[in-house]
């Protein structure tokens, strides 16, 4: 198998991070001896995905480590290692899904192109440092006592925790800086789907940053510091914290469950399956525009779950709604979770059947969503659900057909509501230490 440097990632000992820093080698290698490696190779090659709500098979804490020589399975999250920042693709897409998320969307406030470009450069620099486990700028202490420190300090002493920072450009960005002609055709405004109850203050944005890490403090620190660097140039429009990854890009023995208690999204594109990634996730050279080659498109949806009514639903009905059993997660009529589903055995309005690529002309997306609970909603109901994140090569052939099919008929809709929505173009990765996020678009 061949790999790109950034996308698949893992703990890195020798690959480039930022110009000024590298990961401690002992951190990267420390997991080697006690690896609980699953027989990942035997599980590779499931190209199909398509469960819009979802969990998939995961390697749990096991992630792929990479050294200069080759690859070995290493429990990277327990090692707290760093994920390579530089690469052809941005990290945080095919990177083995970390445990926690802080996602933030920003409005662009400045009209000054030069100033905005400087921000992208400053963010790139800070992101390279933070993903390598270093402080921003001159650090969190030891400087002038009259001035606030560059770094806010709450991640001091914590490991890199596989932090990845992934930037995206939203439709409204292309209204600025004379970028109208550069907006990719594949970055469409999403149509209104039946049942949507979208809150504008929880959607949209000219920029987004997805911060994933195994330690929530590390993810929150990263967004907070980027927001701080951005004041005056960009302003946080909305943000979302996530926990309990609901899908995985590393097929393994365990499938995480969503807040309905189901293993959902058993099929996801593996971060190792380069042919599926090339077909369904990465923007190709000929897809256009040029600056997007090696990038992807992200759809983010805040999907509220009515957990109280769900919990009062009989088991049989719950299982019919998903099209899988609750214990094993096997498709209807099958014994094991990973058995090929027989769609016709499922109810016509079951979630798995409607989300399956076979129902949607092969539409396939890479999901790395997270559960969320934001306390209670004032009516005593848990404000909880799924923060759905899906990467695809083209939104028009990825998320839209799947969601059309689900929004129209999915019986699960009785228990969920899409309340936030955003779409972003994810530019390719930062190639070297002189490169910066969005260079190909702004140069």
């Amino acid at each position, binding site marked *: 198998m061949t790999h790109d440097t950034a996308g698949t990632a893992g703990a890195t000992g020798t690959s480039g991070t930022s110009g000024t820093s590298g990961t401690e080698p002992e951190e990267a290698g420390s997991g080697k001896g006690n690896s609980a490696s699953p027989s990942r190779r035997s599980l590779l090659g499931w190209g199909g995905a398509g469960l819009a709500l979802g969990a998939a098979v995961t390697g749990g804490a096991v992630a792929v480590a990479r050294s200069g020589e080759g690859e070995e399975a290493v429990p990277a999250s327990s090692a707290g290692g760093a994920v390579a920042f530089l690469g052809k693709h941005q990290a945080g897409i095919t990177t083995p899904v970390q445990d926690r998320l802080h996602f933030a969307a920003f*409005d662009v406030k400045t009209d000054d192109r030069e100033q905005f470009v400087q921000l992208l450069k400053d963010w790139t620099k800070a992101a390279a440092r933070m993903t390598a486990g270093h402080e921003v700028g001159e650090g969190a202490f030891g400087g*002038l*006592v*009259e*001035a606030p420190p560059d770094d806010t300090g709450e991640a001091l002493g914590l490991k890199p925790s596989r932090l990845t920072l992934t930037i995206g450009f939203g439709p409204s960005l292309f209204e600025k800086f004379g970028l109208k002609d550069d907006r990719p055709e594949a970055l469409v405004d999403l149509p209104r789907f039946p049942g949507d109850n979208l809150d504008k*203050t929880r959607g949209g944005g000219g920029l987004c940053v997805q911060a994933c890490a195994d330690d929530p403090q590390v993810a929150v620190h990263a967004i907070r510091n980027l927001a*701080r660097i951005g*004041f005056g140039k960009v302003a946080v429009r909305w943000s979302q914290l996530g926990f309990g990854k609901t899908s995985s890009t590393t097929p393994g023995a365990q499938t995480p469950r969503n807040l309905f208690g189901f293993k959902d999204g058993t099929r996801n594109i593996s971060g190792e399956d380069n042919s599926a990634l090339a077909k369904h996730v990465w923007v190709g050279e000929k897809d256009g525009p040029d600056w997007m080659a090696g990038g992807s498109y992200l759809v983010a949806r805040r999907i509220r779950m009515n957990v109280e009514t769900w919990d009062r639903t009989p088991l049989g009905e719950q299982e019919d709604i998903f099209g899988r059993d609750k214990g094993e997660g096997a498709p209807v009529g099958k014994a094991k979770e990973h058995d090929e589903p027989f769609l016709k055995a499922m109810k016509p309005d079951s979630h798995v059947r409607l989300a399956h690529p076979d129902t949607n002309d092969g539409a396939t997306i890479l999901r790395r969503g997270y559960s969320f609970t934001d306390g209670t909603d004032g009516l005593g109901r848990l404000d909880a659900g799924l923060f759905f994140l899906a990467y695809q090569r083209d939104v028009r052939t990825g998320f839209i057909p799947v969601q059309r099919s689900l929004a129209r008929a999915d019986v699960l809709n009785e228990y969920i509501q899409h309340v936030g929505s955003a779409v972003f173009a994810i530019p390719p990765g930062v190639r070297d230490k002189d490169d910066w996020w969005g260079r190909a678009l702004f140069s």
Partner: protein
Amino acid sequence: MRPARLPAATAIAAVAALTAVTGCTEKSDAKGGGNTVEVTATDDKCEVSKTKLSSGHVELAIENKGSKVTEVYLLFPDDRIVSERENIGPGTKQKLTAEVKSGSYQIACKPGMKGDGIRQKISVSGGKAVKRDPRLDKAVADYRAYAQEQADATLPKVKLFTDAVRKGDIEAAKKTYANSRIGWERTEPVAESFGDIDPKVDLREDGLEEDQDLEKDWTGWHRLERSLWQDKKLGERDKELATLLDKDLKDWQKRVGKAEITPTSMANGAKELLDEVATGKVTGEEERYSHTDLVDFKANVEGAEKAYGLLKSVASENDPALTKELDKQFAALDKLLGKYREGGGKDSYEFTSYDKVGKADRKGLQDGVNALAEPLSKLAAAVVSSK
């Protein structure tokens, strides 16, 4: 609403960075025995054994012979602190040491740790003169004058308000309320540095402690604001409160010119004014009955801009990109605020009632404040890095 005074350690460090004078209050290994000043503090006297010293290591041997806890300061002529020793109990001795360059200084004893203290002038000669940027001394002096002007101009405006309250004229009182607060809001960090005046005049309902009584212990502008807008009536207590407000603000007027002000406290005071906006005004908490938050907002920004303007010439030499950004963000925030002016010219203080400002607009104001406050937090560094 928060004590804005720089912690003593910060103030000392600021001075050290400015002038290369190091306060080292913990050291007692005074070298030059001839450079020791015996300071005898009592409740009404501050006697020093000599007033002429040589530059270098200076030691103040302090004895408190009074009945009150005292503190002793070694000060520059403009009141900036070289070094200080707090909490010197009655009958105890303490030492204070400092590295001092030639120039004139003052020693101040503060019995009860209050007020300006009892001052003694001393002069230090020999060696190198203290390197001082006269522009910063002037900035401090000008800002002190500004704070005094604001206080002087506020008193008559407050009297218009309090007279209306005493007359029981609700309409006139409502009309003069917000205007009476502008001078205070412009210089709030200075006023707050006294610690005792702020809670008397500017306390909000939720600022009361558990054992304090809403009727008996709550005084000042916001208590009257509640009577006018929420209770919609003025009683005997309100008339007493009006007179008390006059009295407390007279105290402020008397003391404001002697506040401890340094270039860094000016710079960080400007940032604190924006913090006031970000935490109290943008949320509508400050003027929750009258909804005149935008008047305070404007005044806070003006006060910050004044302090910035006085420090700008020095800051722009050290960090031209910063002052360029600050100029831009002050202008942007002024413009944004201008959108909420109701009639009147560009200097008018007639602003939209804050309960009429929607969520999205409040977010826009918050974004504008963040855009200014973040670079403003770097102003002090740009000021002290000057040589």
